């Protein structure tokens, strides 16, 4: 009976995720344009590793990782403030979480205008006397990646704030009160009591943020920059799409997908190890 009930889920996942993963492994060792398959073997991986564009793409992924701590620390600060029951905190919480419901397509479209030559950011820069660094952010490789990174940070604020608020709600207020009575200031209480007790939640938000940075930005990049200028904002996940569906190299695309999976599995295992080491 139990077996029968679990069969639909098992079949669906096997047919549409399990088998395709094995196929991807096979395709990755072929030269294949969707019609003709030529078996090459594991040397396809060497070929990709020798391709400078591949390393350029990984560099973009690595640079986007720099956004992760920011995307965690800002929400941590926001949550700490909201947790003090600032006037209207529940309304703020709803507002901050709202972008979670909005698609990357929509966010990307607004972001593209925000970072444009005549966009809001440049107007703000001019207004505060920083007109000198005004630029068309999306037309430079590094500035475009910066724009994508900033948009990514913005979009993670809601999710991470909610995670930390949930975490703070699990902390016994008596602990913080005791420290306050002993004369500890708000910052010290946060550093020595609240933050250590939040460790599990910080780890969780770290994982969510890293996974989003690696696998959740396709639509944003598609709409905002199209991966460019050049390969300036092409991340690995976007490169999979570009290689397979824009250039028609299905074999290489599958190979890149396999590498992405390996990276995700390594991150997943690292997280497991972190969580285990606590107990």
């Amino acid at each position, binding site marked *: 009976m139990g077996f029968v009930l679990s069969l639909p889920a098992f079949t669906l*996942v096997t047919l549409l995720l399990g*088998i*395709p*993963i094995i196929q991807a492994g096979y395709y990755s060792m072929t030269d294949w344009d969707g019609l003709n398959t030529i078996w090459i073997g594991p040397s396809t991986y060497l070929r990709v590793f020798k391709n400078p564009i591949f390393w350029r793409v990984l560099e973009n992924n690595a640079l986007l990782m720099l956004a992760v701590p920011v995307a965690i620390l800002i929400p941590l600060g926001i949550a700490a403030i909201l947790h003090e029951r600032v006037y209207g905190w529940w309304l703020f919480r709803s507002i*901050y*979480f709202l972008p979670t419901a909005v698609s990357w397509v929509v966010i990307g479209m607004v972001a593209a205008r925000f970072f444009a030559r005549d966009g809001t950011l440049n107007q703000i820069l001019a207004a505060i006397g920083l007109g000198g660094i005004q630029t068309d952010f999306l037309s430079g490789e590094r500035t475009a990646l910066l724009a994508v990174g900033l948009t990514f940070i913005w979009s993670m604020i*809601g999710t991470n704030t909610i995670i930390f608020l949930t975490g703070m709600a699990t902390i016994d207020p008596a602990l913080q009160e005791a420290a306050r009575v002993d004369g500890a200031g708000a910052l010290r209480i946060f550093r020595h009591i609240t933050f250590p007790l939040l460790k599990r939640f910080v780890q969780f938000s770290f994982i969510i943020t890293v996974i989003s940075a690696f*696998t959740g930005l396709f639509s944003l990049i598609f709409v905002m920059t199209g991966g460019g200028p050049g390969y300036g904002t092409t991340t690995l996940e976007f490169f*999979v799409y570009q290689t397979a569906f824009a250039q028609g190299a299905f074999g290489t695309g599958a190979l890149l997908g396999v590498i992405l999976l390996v990276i995700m599995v390594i991150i997943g295992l690292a997280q497991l190890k972190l969580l285990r080491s606590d107990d």
Partner: protein
Amino acid sequence: MTMTVPRGARAGSDVAPRKGQRRGRGRRVALFLAMVVVAVVMLYPFWFMINTSLKTQDQYVSGSGHSLTSWSKLTSVLPVGSQLTNSMIVCVLSIAIIVFVSSCAGFAFAKLRYRASTLVFLGIIAAMLIPMQSIIIPAYVNIAKVDLLTTYFGAVLVYAALGTPFATFLMTAYYRGLPDELIEAGIIDGLGYGRVFLRIAVPMSVPAVVTVIVLQFIQIWDDLLIGLLFLQNTDQRTITVGLGVLSTGRVTDIPVLMAGSLVSAIPAVIVYLVFQRYLISGLTAGIGK
């Protein structure tokens, strides 16, 4: 006017902590203002979309004036009605499959364990790690082979498969929380396992099911990649895909794009506003013990 009386009275009667109190109040005001600034940053895109959609392209460029022209032009650029319907169809079909398979499997893994059930459970959960980009090429080839790229079902199947692992995780966790006695009582009363599942377990799992529905609705409604590849028939495009394609195309009328963006965002935002609680519980369910 009336506010000043009690405030003055309190200050007069309680002189010693006055200084600290005032500093506390100043601090609270500062924190409140900081939160207002963050709120402005978070709401900016919504304001930008609304404000810009109420201009013509010329008014947008010049930065002054308002008009409803862009809204009346919207439907000629983007078939909003049919694309919203497509989004709805794809969401409903995918979510129906996800809810069905994850409820059944969750109940089995929690209450009807069999010899290999832990292994099967772990296999399904492990699939959460698979990024959609890693399976998308083989999945595309397979779906093309069975001729589903020009129907809704290709995309629906992929969405369902991608949503199932986490939904199964949520449902299993929820059913585990139901007391075993409840199930046993049903069996003693002569209901078979099938009816215990349908009449006792399923009605009790409504909160978890709502969480699954809300999470998946927002995810599928907002998706671009799967829809872009697996809905080859232009008439079947979802609104998010329609908009995504439009944004890279020839249409450079920004106010019209913003009007379209607003329309596409509204359903998911409404779902969010109504079911916020469930979305939060689904998000934090992954943290575990």
